[in-house]
């Protein structure tokens, strides 16, 4: 739908500066686009291509590999229900079926009101708390059907202020001040860091390996 906003372009340029080559910033910028719009819009991909000196096809090529990037709008709350082995053993499939029934959609679908998308996902690293799910990548543990219904009610009521809209991952970003950055090493620039050379044993002439 939209290109990156002016403030997001500033953020994008800061992110690009943290990488030795611009293309390395591609996944972070796709996250930024998804944070802005809730999904990765086509215009945003074109804009990212301009910022990184790539073709839009290269941007899409990377974007389409990663399942967190949504190329179409999804619900405000994306509910990822784990059905992998540990959750399977403890009712993950039943929880998924309950969710599908409650919301009247199949895994991968979005409710008509645009509020919920459900996905049947692979292991989300909370296996001792099975069955588990994530709402916009925030965990809910050991849910039974009633817990799930309560979760839906809370999300509908807007009382889960701890869960941002889909697209927002970490709400705290890394910022490295210009006075604190040591200098991201570019692959084109050969040479050992000065501090490392200075710490080599004298007999080694400063050309030794790091191990």
């Amino acid at each position, binding site marked *: 739908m939209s290109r990156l906003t002016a403030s997001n372009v500033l953020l994008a340029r800061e992110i690009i500066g*943290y*990488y*030795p*080559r611009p*293309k*390395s*910033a*591609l*996944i972070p910028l*796709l*996250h930024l686009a998804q944070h802005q719009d809730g999904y990765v819009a086509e215009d945003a991909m074109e804009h990212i291509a301009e910022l*990184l000196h790539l073709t839009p096809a290269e941007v899409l*090529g*990377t974007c389409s*590999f*990663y*399942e*967190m*990037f949504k190329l179409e709008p999804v619900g405000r709350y994306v509910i990822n229900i784990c*059905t*992998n*082995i*540990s959750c*399977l*053993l403890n009712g993950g499939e039943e929880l998924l079926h309950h969710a599908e029934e409650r919301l009247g959609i199949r895994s991968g679908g979005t409710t008509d009101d645009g509020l919920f998308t459900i996905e049947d996902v*692979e*292991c989300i*690293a*909370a*296996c*001792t708390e*099975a069955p588990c799910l*994530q709402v*916009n990548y925030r*965990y809910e543990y050991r849910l039974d059907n009633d817990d799930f219904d309560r979760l839906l009610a809370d999300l509908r009521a807007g009382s889960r202020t701890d869960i941002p809209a889909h697209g927002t991952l*970490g709400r*705290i970003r*890394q*910022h*490295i*001040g210009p006075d*604190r950055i*040591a*200098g*991201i*090493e570019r*692959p084109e*620039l*050969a*040479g050992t*860091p000065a*501090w*490392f050379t*200075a*710490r*080599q*044993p004298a007999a080694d002439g400063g*050309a030794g*390996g790091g*191990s």
Partner: protein
Amino acid sequence: MATNAYVSHATGYVDNEGPKVVTSRFLHPDSYTLERSEATGGYSALRAVLQMEPADAAAQVKEAILLGRGGAGFPAGIKWGFMPAVWPRYLVVNGDESEPGTYKDRLLMERDPHQLIEGCIITCYALGLNTCFLYVRGEMALAQERLAQALNDAYAAGYVGKDIMGTDVGIDIVLHWGAGAYIVGEETALIESLEGNRGMPRLKPPFFPAAKGLYMKPTIVNNVETLANLPWIFTNGVDAYRQLGSERSPGTRMLAISGHVNRPGVYEVEQGVVTFRDLFYGDNYCQGIAAGNELKMFIPGGGSAPWFFPEQLDLKLEAAEVGAAGSMLGSGALVVMDHTTDAVKACLRVVRFFARESCGKCTPCREGTTWEEQILQRIMDGNGRPSDIDLLLDIGSQISPGDYPAAAFEAEGLTAVPFPPKQTTICPLGPSSVAPIVSAIRRFRHEFEAKMPVAPAVSDQHEQRTDGETSMSEAEAEEVHA
């Protein structure tokens, strides 16, 4: 004193009896803050390391026998030694934890990000490099937030960035979020992803990341838990570290034990000392199989690991021992399944994972894992064909030729086939899909057979016509394979 109980603010973690190397701060609700870290010795190891020559620091890690905790168990110190004297060089930290059943890196990042940051800086210093990328799995929003805050605080406090702790040493750590792809946990795929590409593994040889990695420059990829051990090692010394665990596997490991046990949890456990039986039944650990049921099988090291059975319960958690017995300790994920578990269904679910996560680069994996899933699904649905069991093994042998690693099954006269499997693919993902298939069929072939439909009428007529012949004709077999 350990409480031998869950810790409410660190969901899943159990504060059991035993030495704490990487989880020592977990009992503090504010363990992720710089204040708590500093008050409990945080960054004091770094201060000491900065007084050493980098090569000496690297030598100590080698001496400590710090085994990689990501899955392969390769000693970090030896891996570091593979770097040629070429600059620039990079450190990439693998926090893309997604092996089924595994979670310990997530807790380490959420609960003690400063410990990891300190480990990263120590590694960069020892290797003489000044740029580190910390690749965190996309789905782990809280870990991203905690690490971002910790990095911002550590930069401000002078532990990262320019002039670290008042010295001339400058090292940057850049936090990078993944975007949902299991295969990116493979180190060359992770490097591809960090370069902004589709996360597909690179062919190796000729180039291993230590020689040609990120931007084709020397790159060390280490797991989160591996590096989280470093502050303890440099605070307490190599000798103290090697007194923990066994001779071949010093130190501790974080193990996530899930499935049908009374107290599933993440435990810090001395390596090579306890047995699987201790873990599943011991009071200090999982306290028995849930609901008083019987153990049927267990996965000892993540979804990629061949299954073990009650016969293997008394093995120690020692990589060499477990490898010889036909599986691996892998990523420290143990999944326990009781006698009510449907072996075919469990097999299908693990295979389905690999089918969904195959990156598509190598044909045997891309096609093979999908075929495996489809065949298992039709068996589950009651539409299996008599030849399907052998067909599954046949497809498996095309992804992983030869005898596939498996546990001994003495009742059937089957001996153990040691780990690892062979592969016709670039990375181990495809061969991993064969683990549940060989494990389940070798042991529970009757469960597969029991799901086969009663022979259809057409076959009956055919058998009558061929006058007593009960096996499938050549033509019929061809048809099934087609």
